[in-house]
């Protein structure tokens, strides 16, 4: 019962965050909303693991957390430099 209430709260928050991701004026709003969607998805995975009595979902949640961090940083680096293989040395030389 308690886990169902928590899952409902997380789903409500997820809907609001997705609304921001669709509406966001700049691309950084969308990146921020995407990161929050990842965070809420991890929480939802953990809560669903408890709800169904299968704690194996926590492994998926951990993996998704690491992927979320690396993915957001990669997207930010791409928007900042326009290139994922950006090298500082080449910019200072040229």
């Amino acid at each position, binding site marked *: 019962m*308690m*886990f169902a*209430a*928590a899952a409902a*709260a*997380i789903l*409500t*928050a*997820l809907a*609001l*965050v997705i*609304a*921001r991701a669709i509406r966001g004026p*700049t691309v*950084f*709003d969308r*990146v*921020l*909303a995407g*990161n*929050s969607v990842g*965070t*809420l998805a*991890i*929480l939802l995975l*953990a*809560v669903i693991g*408890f709800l169904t009595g299968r*704690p194996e979902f*926590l*492994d998926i*949640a*951990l993996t998704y*957390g*690491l992927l*979320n*961090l690396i993915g*957001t*940083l990669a997207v*930010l*680096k791409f*928007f*900042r430099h326009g290139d994922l293989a950006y090298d500082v040395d080449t910019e200072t030389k040229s």
Partner: protein
Amino acid sequence: MTVAVNIASVALMTVGSFFVIVGALGLVRMPEVFTRMHAAGIIDTVGTGFLILGMCLQAGASLVTLKLLFLLVLFFFGSPIVTHALAQACLHENIQPRLAEDRRDITSPPAASADDGRQP
């Protein structure tokens, strides 16, 4: 004992759900990207913190609790890194924070208030 742990767990998860919804509302209602980062930080710290601690109390001392604590550590280090990189990328794109009073030029306080009247 078990009843007390259950009550504490329900309280923690209720507080966590409340802060998750508050953070999502802030993400929708806040006026610009820097204030929205603050709302997202509420989801990442208080919301996940209370929810995961509540789930830890439900799981008891087991491998599940260890995994939940790993998740907590991941959020503890990951969220500030993402917020820092996002703010830096915003400033790099010349998106400035909306300020009521720009005080970034003031690097040191005035000399008159430095000694608080201790000198005669």
